[in-house]
């Protein structure tokens, strides 16, 4: 049965302080899915997750079971790494999930580790999340004491260790190979792929990197079955989705919602509409890396495939009439990303909003690839002078050219993450940028 507004899995314990302790979690049925999983064959667990249509909640939306299937069968050592480095602007779900329900994450990780025969596993948590680190570290200690972690998990003979590893301030460490380098004690700079982490990751071993929300869904899949989970969703996307709504709405918040909900339903029905009775101007659909939508594009469901292919969304252009090519002639509309929905009302200064996003990427570029290191810096400088009213004739085309020069030409996706929204804003609000420059010229 498809999920309805009000169907809650991973956020069911939001607001309930008692679930933060292992005793409180157990009282509510916690760790029963782990007991069930330990009695299953690991391959059957992988197949159950494949059948669930669970897709990665960190941003890419990759099928989780398929990713797990990439681990070579003869691997000597495998690692599960939880990506808790949430830092994509507009995204604030993992921080809440960890704070309210740390044991659900641990249970999901132990089940995943059992399914993939992983002994030494890690949670990489963002350095700034100090409150959540304390919560998680305590929960891990409790889980060891109760035998959910350790040399012999619940007497099953399965050895499973979990270490919480704190970052120290770097957005790029949310990129999975940068995260692995950071875990290994290096600067957080992404690796060339292939090899992908599932084949050669942490310490050279096959490694599965999954997002917090992704792993927290695993106990539900074990408990109720993959097909049940798939049916909650829509199309090739199973389960529910955590959406974080911020910006100019009456009731911002973090909500667990059916995957097929549209932006219009989200803004009007869930978030009480745009504040001050205004209209929507722009909506960032899933973290600032994703091209924004205009008011005419809000009836699309917030689902991974729909946002890439729905023809109601205007494809991103490099220059007017010249479509951006993602490779092989593929168009870029937008993507579901991280679930961070940022709503901007009709009073919003789009060039200024765009500049703030470029400032972020210029700050966070790791410096490894020239197009990104130099390009994000120039996107910030040029977009700032346009936003400040000091733009020069030709600056709009210059911004488009710089962005186009970065996209696709870097080791990791941070370059694209800066270029796509830049081009997206220009595609949909080019006259606003031009008007600011015309004012200077006049």
């Amino acid at each position, binding site marked *: 049965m498809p999920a309805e507004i009000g169907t809650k899995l991973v956020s069911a314990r939001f607001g309930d302080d008692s679930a933060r302790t292992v005793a409180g979690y157990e009282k509510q049925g916690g760790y029963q899915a782990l007991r069930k999983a330990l009695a299953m064959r690991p391959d059957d667990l992988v197949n159950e997750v494949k059948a669930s249509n669970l897709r990665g909640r960190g941003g890419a939306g990759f099928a989780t079971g398929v990713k797990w299937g990439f681990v070579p069968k003869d691997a000597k050592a495998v690692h599960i790494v939880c990506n808790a480095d949430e830092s994509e602007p507009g995204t604030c779900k993992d*921080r809440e999930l960890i704070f309210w329900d740390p044991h659900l994450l641990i249970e999901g990780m132990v089940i995943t580790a059992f399914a993939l025969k992983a002994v030494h596993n890690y949670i990489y948590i963002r350095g700034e999340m100090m409150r959540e680190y304390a919560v998680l570290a305590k929960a891990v200690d409790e889980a060891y004491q109760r035998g959910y972690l350790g040399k012999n998990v619940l007497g099953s003979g399965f050895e499973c260790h979990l270490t919480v590893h704190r970052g120290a301030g770097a957005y790029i460490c949310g990129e999975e190979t940068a995260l692995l380098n950071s875990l290994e004690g290096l600067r957080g700079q992404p690796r060339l792929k292939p090899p992908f982490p599932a084949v050669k990751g942490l310490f050279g071993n096959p490694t599965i990197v999954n997002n917090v929300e992704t792993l927290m869904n695993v106990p539900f899949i074990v408990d109720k079955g993959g097909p049940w989970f798939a049916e909650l969703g829509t199309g090739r996307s199973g389960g529910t989705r955590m959406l974080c709504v911020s910006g100019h709405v009456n009731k911002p918040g973090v909500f667990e919602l059916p995957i097929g909900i549209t932006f219009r339903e989200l803004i009007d029905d869930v978030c009480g509409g745009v504040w001050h009775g205004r209209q929507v101007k722009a909506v960032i659909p899933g973290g600032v890396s994703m091209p924004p939508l205009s008011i005419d594009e809000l009836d699309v469901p917030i689902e991974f495939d729909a946002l890439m292919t729905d023809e109601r969304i205007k494809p991103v252009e490099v220059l007017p009439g010249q479509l951006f090519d993602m490779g092989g002639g593929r168009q870029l509309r937008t993507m579901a990303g991280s679930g961070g929905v940022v709503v901007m009302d009709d009073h919003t200064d789009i060039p200024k909003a765009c500049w703030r996003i470029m400032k972020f990427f210029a700050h966070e570029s790791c410096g490894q690839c020239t197009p990104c290191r130099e390009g994000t810096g120039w996107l910030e400088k040029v977009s700032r002078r346009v936003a400040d009213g000091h733009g020069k004739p030709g600056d709009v085309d210059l911004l488009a050219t710089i962005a186009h020069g970065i996209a696709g030409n870097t080791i990791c996706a941070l370059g694209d993450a800066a270029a796509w929204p830049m081009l997206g804003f220009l595609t949909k609000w080019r006259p606003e940028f031009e008007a600011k420059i015309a004012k200077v010229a006049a």
Partner: protein
Amino acid sequence: MSLEFSAEAQKKIAALCERYPSKRPVVLAALHLAQKEFGHLSDDALRLVAKVLDLPYPHVYGVATFYTMFRREPAGRNVLRVCTNISCMLRGAYDVLDAFERRLGVEKGGTAGDFTLVEEECIAACANAPAVICGTRYFLDVTTDQVGEILEFLRKNPHPESEVV
């Protein structure tokens, strides 16, 4: 001047080294501990981390200067991180940052007595923008009127970042 870790920190580092196949992955944790014990990461503090983990000094230097939470200069007991990223900006974060600057009499990045003021990138509290974080304490839906109150609270109840290290 050469530095030494406290017995407690040495114990923590030794325990963490058991968690990884080599000592190198412990570098971030050791730098967090060094910052807690010495206030900031001086050259001597970096040398100490290098010695304890058998790492080359340039490696430790490279790591320490890559991550924004590590400081090479002393800071106030409270590091106040004011998010100005898009969701917070849309709801007045730059006014909040200005108000902190005026109240403290420093520009962002500066230190005044107990406080170091930092313009922070997204701290994952977007649904309660503008958001400010100080150690384990979040200040949410902050308005410019609350700035004095927040500073007063933190003066009485400091929240150093080293609390959880």
